[in-house]
């Protein structure tokens, strides 16, 4: 199976083309650029690099969030539109799972992918490798870093597993993690800190295709306006607010 994969959830932009278990081409850029400007030329180039065309793809895989709202939406919009317009399968992979997939597949470690969500908050989740499969132990969430470190530390005390924290934003929270998990933290080299589209594709091999039209990002958080509105209107169920004419 040939997959075109992409991730623009945060500052890193990565695109890749794989064929079954083989990476044919991958481009990862980690300087601050504009994803909206760069993503389509990058896709065009990575397909050229792989000596393939869009029609050769059996599936499109995308990192669906969480992450920067605008960033996540760019790859999701491109992936969803390409899949729809060429009638190709679409799969979405958690952007946190993509980071977790960079970890060393040691059976005994707890994997903590993190992204800075500002104001002392993180987008994070808890994963582990078991027999080569990446499993989720705690669901992806938007949570305060202080609270999250306690949860990870409790898990660590229970299981006595080493902890791998992954993500370019780790540096901002390193002290906090070290204060609660001293001695059990494994530090990963820089090349394992960035999201890679080859990992999106690898994880995408195992995902079930989604309905393209209804596919949306996993923000893991309502907008502030909606949170406030829900608080003020607890009885409102929501439903569709879109009218077509």
């Amino acid at each position: 199976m040939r997959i075109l994969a992409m991730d623009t959830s945060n500052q890193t932009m990565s695109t890749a083309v794989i064929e079954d278990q083989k990476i044919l081409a991958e481009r990862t850029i980690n300087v601050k650029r504009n994803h909206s400007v760069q993503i389509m030329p990058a896709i065009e180039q990575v397909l050229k690099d792989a000596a393939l065309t869009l029609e050769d793809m059996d599936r499109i895989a995308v990192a669906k969030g969480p992450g920067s709202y605008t960033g996540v939406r760019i790859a999701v919009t491109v992936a969803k539109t390409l899949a729809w317009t060429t009638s190709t399968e679409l799969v979405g992979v958690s952007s946190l799972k993509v980071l977790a997939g960079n970890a060393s597949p040691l059976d005994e470690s707890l994997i903590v992918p993190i992204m800075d969500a500002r104001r002392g908050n993180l987008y994070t989740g808890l994963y582990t490798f078991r027999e080569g499969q990446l499993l989720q132990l705690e669901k992806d969430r938007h949570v305060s870093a202080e609270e999250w470190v306690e949860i990870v530390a409790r898990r660590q005390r229970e299981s006595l597993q080493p902890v791998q924290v992954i993500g370019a934003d780790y540096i901002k929270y390193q002290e906090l993690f070290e204060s609660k998990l001293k001695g059990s933290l494994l530090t990963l080299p820089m090349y394992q800190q960035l999201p890679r589209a080859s990992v999106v594709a690898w994880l995408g091999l195992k995902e079930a295709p989604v309905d393209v039209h209804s596919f949306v990002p996993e923000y893991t958080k309502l907008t502030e306006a909606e949170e406030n509105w829900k608080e003020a209107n607890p009885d409102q169920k929501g439903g569709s607010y879109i009218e077509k004419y």
Partner: protein
Amino acid sequence: MTIKKVLAIETSCDETSAAVIENGNHQLSNVVASQIKSHQRFGGVVPEVASRHHVEQMTLVMEEALKQAGVSYEDLDAVAVTEGPGLVGALLIGVNAAKAVAYAHQLPLIPVNHIIGHIYANQLVQPLKFPLLALVVSGGHTELVYIEAPGHYEIIGETRDDAAGEAYDKVGRVLGVPYPGGKHIDEMAHKGKDTYHFPRAMLQDESNDFSFSGLKSSFINTVHNAKQKGEKLDPNDLAASFQAAVIEVLVKKTIRCAKEQPVKQIVLAGGVAANKGLRTALKEAVEQELQDTELLIPPLSLCGDNAAMIGAAAFVESIKTDQIDLTLNAQPGLTI
């Protein structure tokens, strides 16, 4: 480049829209998914909420537009998209969707200015004749645009503060009508009388510019003072007085510009073009004062944001483009 059929996309604010337009003047489809009900919860458009809705609707709306038009990708000659002005996060969805479709089917990509789109909505009804003067009034814009020939635009007057539609929304909030306030104020105005004589800002001024923030403040003060004194004001009269002040300035300045710089057509455009009071007043003024000038007022379906107008404008913009520029980006502050 000869272009016949265009798939057009518009996502600059709170409507996700796609259309198929033939020859710049014939609408084969025009699908609009409006988010108004969602933003009503917040009393105005919340940009992040708008962006989220666009992602939900984008491919559905494009599919519906192609289906209704009965065309396939082989029938299309280009993809047109609003590049700006508008909300950046909202524009990005349309721009990236348009680029993906253009790339997948190797179609030229035509970026369109939203304001030019509003003006060209009229071309879907009857041919534009140049030179023309366009009055563009919406929630984000109040502009007088002189167009000497296709592609030659000159803004000769614009608002120095609030857009006319924005003033309507703010006054609507004070009157307690649902967002967007324009439609409700228009209805109330027809039941009331101009009794408060709000200021006609910059009417005597030599410039062609507009200002609506003073009018808005005067309105709010009137309501506030009455409240403090425990007086009851007639909301219909308030609406009628506000609307009369907005319309008088818009109409008089438009007529004055057309007299100074004669044009073949005066074209009304933008969301506020749906205002009955404005449509009637402009029609009467042109009939009385500019007998040789034709007035174009778009049907209500083409006043609000829609992709059909982007497809119509794309035929003029297409002169500049003959390839797919995959680096196209959203231009939230784009001018004409």
